[in-house]
């Protein structure tokens, strides 16, 4: 086990940034759901409502040079990374103004300028890629690291184990982050894993592993910072498991037959946004009117994002075969 994790002091301003980012993500996701019901967004749409502390906590610990790879549940990660909500919304509307010119949609957000590499929708498929990006960083003697997010369902895929072993064997600068939201679609973790101790699976591959409360954004951020420090000091990968929960359906259609309302309510009491907001209120670091203003600003930003997406344009069908091969 690594040294005891202590919550390092964090500035008041930064706490507010964390709150603001989580709220922005929450509202963005709610708006996306609304846009889905209006058929502005189609295909699959996976929301991270309830899990905001994970992308916000981790991504705030990274530098702009670090690479990030995510799953199909990645709108929050994209926003936390600083891709504009307009670009993300436009992408989901299928417009050229989207971060992938509309080609990718909700599950495939990429922005090379932000070192944001998806939006990957084959469960487990991006883990080997993340290892390869970290391998390149090591070969290039770059200072940056790679950060890879995935669900606890992905941990059952053979690729998880192959990727973990390679990362450890090659001593790569990669932070593997398991967003353990307790379910893979309708399959609870105990039906996915014979042993639900995910950290042990990291350690069996010789990787330093740590499990933290993924509903507390400051805990997540501290753990991520610790992990990144470990990676830099020891020149080895680090595995962070964040215990969290998805408050909404897996995607848009989901009767949620596989879990009880009571369980969902139980977890909602640990809503990462409410937790932090209440704490800041209690500590008088923020006032009710500050929050109101923050919410209004977010509302305005999200509405602007929708307007931006609406105003966007579609690629011509004559360009259909573009991006199958590089232009030479």
């Amino acid at each position, binding site marked *: 086990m690594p040294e005891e994790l202590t919550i390092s002091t964090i500035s008041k301003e930064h706490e507010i940034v964390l709150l603001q980012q989580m709220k922005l993500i929450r509202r963005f996701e709610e708006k996306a759901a609304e846009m889905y019901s209006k058929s502005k967004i189609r295909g699959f749409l996976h929301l991270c409502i309830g899990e905001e502390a994970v992308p916000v906590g981790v991504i705030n610990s990274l530098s702009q040079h670090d690479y990030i790879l995510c799953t199909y549940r990645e709108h929050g990660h994209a926003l936390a990374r600083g891709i504009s909500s307009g670009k993300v919304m436009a992408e989901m509307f299928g417009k050229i103004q989207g971060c992938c010119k509309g080609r990718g949609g909700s599950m495939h957000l990429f922005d090379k300028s932000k070192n944001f590499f998806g939006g990957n929708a084959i469960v487990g498929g991006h883990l080997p890629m993340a290892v390869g990006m970290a391998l390149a960083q090591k070969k290039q003697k770059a200072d940056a690291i790679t950060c890879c997010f995935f669900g606890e*369902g992905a941990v*059952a*895929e053979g690729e998880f184990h192959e990727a973990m072993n390679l990362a450890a064997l090659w001593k790569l600068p990669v932070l593997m982050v398991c967003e353990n939201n307790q379910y893979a*679609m309708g399959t609870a973790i105990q039906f*996915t894993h014979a042993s639900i101790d995910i950290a042990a699976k990291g350690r069996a591959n010789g990787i330093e592993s740590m499990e933290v409360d993924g509903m507390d954004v400051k805990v997540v951020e501290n753990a991520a910072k610790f992990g990144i420090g470990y990676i830099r000091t020891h020149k080895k990968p680090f595995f962070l498991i964040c215990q969290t929960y998805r408050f909404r359906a897996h995607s848009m259609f989901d009767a949620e*037959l596989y879990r009880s309302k009571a369980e969902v309510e139980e977890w909602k009491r640990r809503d990462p946004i409410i937790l932090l907001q209440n704490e800041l209120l209690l500590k008088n670091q923020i006032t009710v009117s500050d929050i109101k203003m923050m919410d209004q600003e977010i509302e305005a930003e999200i509405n602007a994002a929708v307007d931006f997406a609406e105003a966007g344009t579609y*690629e011509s*069908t004559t360009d259909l075969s573009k*991006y199958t091969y590089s232009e030479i």
Partner: protein
Amino acid sequence: MMDTLKINYREALRQALRESLLNDENVFLMGEDVGRYGGAFAVSKGLLQEFGEDRIMDVPLSESGFVGAGIGAAMAGMKPIVELMTVNFSLLAMDQIVNNAATLLHMSGGQIHVPIVIRIGCGKGKQLAAQHSHSWEPIFAHIPGLIVVSAGTHEDARMMLSAALKSKDPVILFEYTSLLNTEGELEKNLRECELNKSIIRKSGKHISLITYGACVGKALNAAATLELSGIEAEVIDLRVLRPLDEATFLASVTKTHKALIIEDAWQSVSISSEVSARIMEKAFYELDAPVERICGSEVPIPYPAHLEQAALPSEEMIVQKVKKILKHD
């Protein structure tokens, strides 16, 4: 007068599953989210409650693992129905399917049979973007040792599974997610279906439209439209993609002297390539015009609806192409 009933494709699939589970206690279903979730597309909804956890098994995200386990169970006397949620994840299990399921009988000199049925949701057209919009029937149809079938109609959605379960050899059964909510007619007195024959879904004498899967409906619609212009197209649903029933389409081409092959899959090295090559080899002198193809565009499928639709065969494209071919008369 035929006694028919209306049924949607999803319900047809569900009834087929239920019937198979009732008929043979060695049959069991396993796949991601087939149980507690009710199936990713609600096909197996209620079956867990009816048959219990031993017969409706949720599995972890381990495609190679659970497909391989299905193969092993089949070798050891069970009749597993393994669901790959969608074809998009099938490559992860491809080594198991090709190097084990398709190969064991041969390698063992005929000793080991692998009576597994692998159901795979397949197809494009739901704005699921590049990683989730595959039609990989051609890849499977390349593999000796596999029986590859495609349920392009409600009848086959209802009847193919029980026929597949009679096979001693591995059967890959393609189902089409884009058809799930469509309604169709089914005879009340269900007839057993054959797993080795194509079916002429509509007869005609001017041209043969050869197709399968999600394009059967498009071809039938196109044929109906063409009928208005006095063109009688014959529509052949291949159904069995391996081993191909070439007799049926060769006979049709011998009658119509023209053929158009339609499929959603990418064009190069596809089912339509094979059908065209067979017609070339075996009915060349019957042809009044070159056989043509309308297939999926050779691009990863883009997310936006208009681009995706542009990448797929449409009724309109079929109608126009047929008219163009017939001018060659």
